[in-house]
C-alpha cells in the first residue's frame, strides 16, 4: 500500500488558482467517487480550505506514477480547469513525505499562522466527507486518526499554540497574566470601535462579568452596551468609573489625552491599589504615557500590543522546530503500523514458496524424463507453474479477503499453514 498526496497551498499558489480548484462539500463527495476506482486509486480524501486544496490517495504499491497522473487529470476534469493553470503550483509527495505532510498540516505547522486551531477541524471534516462518500478505507482511516493524535501531541507538548497572535486576543492573554482568571472582571470601554469591541467580546467570552461603556454621545454608549449585555455609564464621570474597572479599553477619536495621570491615580486609590490593565488602541493615543509609570497600572498601546504579537509569532516558530521532531518520530511509527496493514509481502512470499517447491521437484525428477526438446522442457515447466498458480489462487483470494475485513487471526492461520514469516 502506498500513500500519495497532490495539492497546492497558500505558499505555492496565489488565491486566483486556489479558488478555481476549491471543492465544496457536495462536489467533493461526488468527485471523490469518480476519483476512487478501486484499482489504482483505492481510497481518496480531499482537503479543501481557503488556504489549500489537497488530494490524498491510497494506491497499490508501485502504482505511484499512474496514480499521480490520474489525480492530475482528475483535478483538471473535476474542476474544469486546464492543467497548465495549476500544475506549476502543485506539489506531490509520496509515502513518508506524504504522511509527514499530512501530519504537518493537521498540526498546523503548514498554516499561514502557525498553530492556528481551525485546520484540525478542517481535516476532520474532510475525513467525514470522504467517509460518507465511501472513499475512505483502512489506510486513510489510520492516517487521519494518527494525524489527529499527532496534532494533539504537538499542541500539548510544544508551545506552538500557547501565545496569542492577534491584537484582540493578546489583550485577553495579558489580562490573564495580570489577573489570573478573568472571571468576574469588570471591563470599561471608553469610546467604541471595531477592534475595541472585538477585544471586549474576547474578554467577555473569557469570563469578564461586567461590561461598562462610556461614550461622549450617550446614545452610542447605550447601543454598544446592548450588544454585550452591559451598562452605559456617564462619560463626564469617567474617573469614578475607572475606579470600578479592572480592564479599560480606550478607543476614542479624541486628539487629547482622555485618561490623565491624575485620573488614574484617583481611580487606583478607589481600587485600593488593586492592579488595573489599560489598553489604548486609539491613534492618537488617549492615555497619557506617564500613567504607565504608576505602580499597579499596566498600560499597553497599539504598538505595544503589535510588538507582543510579533514576538509571539517568533515564539511559535521556535516551538514549531520542536514540533517537527515529534512529527519525524510519528511518521516512523505510522510507517511501521502501515507495513502491518500491507498484505503484499505475504502474498509474494506464498507465491515464491510454492514456485520454489515446483522448481525443486522438477530439478529432482528431471533425469527420469530423459531427453526432451527445449519446447517440451518449456511445456513441462509451464504446466507446473500454472498448476501451482491455479492451486494458490483461491488461497490468495481468501487471504486478501481476510486482510480486507481485518481478520488478523485467519490471516495468521494461513501464514502458519504455509510456514510464512509474518512481516
Amino acid at each position, binding site marked *: 500500500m502506498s500513500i500519495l498526496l497532490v495539492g497546492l497551498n497558500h505558499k505555492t499558489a496565489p488565491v486566483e488558482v486556489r479558488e478555481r480548484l476549491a471543492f465544496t462539500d457536495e462536489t467533493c463527495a461526488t468527485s471523490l467517487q469518480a476519483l476512487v476506482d478501486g484499482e489504482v486509486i483505492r481510497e481518496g480524501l480531499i482537503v479543501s480550505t481557503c488556504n489549500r486544496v489537497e488530494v490524498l490517495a491510497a494506491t497499490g504499491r508501485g502504482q505511484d506514477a499512474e496514480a499521480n497522473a490520474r489525480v492530475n487529470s482528475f483535478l483538471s476534469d473535476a474542476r474544469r480547469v486546464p492543467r497548465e493553470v495549476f500544475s506549476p503550483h502543485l506539489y506531490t509527495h509520496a509515502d513518508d513525505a506524504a504522511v509527514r505532510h499530512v501530519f504537518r498540516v493537521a498540526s498546523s505547522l503548514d498554516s499561514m499562522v502557525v498553530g492556528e486551531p481551525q485546520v484540525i477541524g478542517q481535516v476532520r471534516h474532510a475525513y467525514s466527507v470522504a467517509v460518507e462518500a465511501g472513499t475512505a478505507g483502512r489506510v486513510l482511516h489510520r492516517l487521519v486518526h494518527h494525524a489527529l493524535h499527532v496534532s494533539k501531541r504537538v499542541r*500539548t*507538548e*510544544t*508551545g506552538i499554540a*500557547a*501565545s496569542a497572535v492577534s491584537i484582540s486576543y493578546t489583550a485577553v492573554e*495579558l489580562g*490573564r*497574566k*495580570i*489577573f*489570573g482568571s478573568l472571571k468576574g472582571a469588570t471591563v470599561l470601554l471608553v469610546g467604541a470601535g471595531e477592534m475595541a469591541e472585538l477585544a471586549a467580546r474576547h474578554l467577555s467570552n473569557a469570563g469578564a462579568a461586567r461590561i461598562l461603556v462610556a461614550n461622549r454621545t450617550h446614545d452610542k454608549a447605550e447601543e454598544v452596551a446592548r450588544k454585550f449585555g452591559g451598562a452605559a455609564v456617564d462619560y463626564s464621570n469617567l474617573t469614578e468609573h475607572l475606579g470600578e474597572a479592572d480592564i479599560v479599553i480606550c478607543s476614542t477619536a479624541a486628539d487629547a489625552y482622555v485618561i490623565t495621570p491624575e485620573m488614574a491615580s484617583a481611580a487606583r486609590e478607589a481600587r*485600593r*491599589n*488593586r*492592579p488595573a490593565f489599560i489598553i489604548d488602541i486609539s491613534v492618537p493615543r488617549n492615555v497619557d504615557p506617564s500613567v*504607565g509609570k504608576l*505602580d*499597579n497600572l*499596566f498600560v*499597553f498601546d497599539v504598538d*505595544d500590543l503589535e*510588538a*507582543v504579537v510579533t*514576538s509571539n509569532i517568533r*515564539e511559535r516558530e521556535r516551538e514549531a522546530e520542536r514540533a517537527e521532531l515529534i512529527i519525524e518520530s510519528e511518521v516512523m511509527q505510522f510507517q511501521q503500523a502501515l507495513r502491518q496493514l500491507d498484505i503484499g509481502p505475504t502474498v509474494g512470499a506464498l507465491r515464491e514458496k510454492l514456485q520454489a517447491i515446483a522448481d525443486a521437484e522438477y530439478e529432482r525428477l528431471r533425469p527420469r524424463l530423459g531427453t526432451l526438446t527445449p519446447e517440451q522442457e518449456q511445456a513441462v515447466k509451464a504446466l507446473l507453474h500454472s498448476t501451482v498458480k491455479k492451486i494458490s489462487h483461491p488461497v490468495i483470494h481468501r487471504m486478501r479477503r481476510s486482510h480486507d475485513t481485518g481478520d488478523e487471526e485467519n490471516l495468521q492461520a494461513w501464514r502458519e499453514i504455509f510456514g510464512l514469516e509474518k512481516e
Partner: protein
Amino acid sequence: MKPLLYAALAAYVIAAIHYVLAFVNKRRAVERVALLSVGCGFLMHTLAILADWIGDGHYPLFHLHETISFLAWTMVVAYGLALYRYRAQALGVFTLPLVALIVFASSFLRGASNMTPERVTDGSAAWLFPIHTTLLLFAYASFFVAFAASVMYLLQERELKLKTFSAFFHRLPSLSTVDDIGSTAASIGFTLLSLGIMTGILWSSARNGRMWHNDPIEIFAVMTWVLYLTMIHYRTQWRGRKAAWLGVAGFALVVCTFLGALLMGGYHMFG
C-alpha cells in the same frame, strides 16, 4: 537514618532537575515525574526524621544537620500547601533545588560531640523548646515561599512595564496569584514567627529567668518581625511592587538570622 536521607536526597535531586526541565520545556509528563519524586522524597524524608527521633531519643531538631534537614522538610510542606492551594507549579523551580542542596549539606554534617541534647531538656519548661524551634522553622519556610512569590512578582511586573517578555514569562503564574501567595505566606509566617518568639521567651525565662540575651539571632528575629508587621499593616497601600520588595528584604533578614546563629554564636547555637 542515613540511607533514608540519601534516598530522600536522590528523589529531591530528580525532582529539582525535572522541575527545571518542565519550566524550560513545558512538558506535562516531566512535571508529573517531578511531582511524583517530590512525593517519594517527602515520604522518605519524613521516615528519616522519625527514625532519627526514635533512634537518637531526642526531638530531631537540635544538631545543625538535624535542623537544616528539618528546615528542608518544612519547605517541602510549605511548597506542597502552596501547590495544593494555588496550582503554582513554577514554585517548584525555586524550592526543590534549594531543598536538594540543604538536604545534601545535611547529609554531610555530623553533630558536634561537645554538645548534648540534655542542654535543652533540663528545667520544667523543656517541652516548650521543640515547639519553639518547630514553629520558627515553619515560619522560615513560609517566608521562603513569600520570597519566591515576590521574586516571581518582580520579574513579571518588570516585564509587563517594559513590555518585553522573556521565554519564561508564560511559565510563571499570574501577577494576582503570586501577589496572593506572597501575602498569604507572609501572614502565615508572621503568625508562626510571633508564636515562635513567644514560646522562646517563655522557655528561656522558665529556664534561667532571662528573657533576652542580646543575641544576634534575637536581634535579627525582632527586626524580621517588625518588617513583616509593617508589610502586613500597609498591605493595601503597598500592594504589588513595594510589598514584593519587602518580601525579598524580609527573607534577607531571615537568612541573616540563620547565618547569625551559625557564625556569630551566642546563646542560640546549633550543636
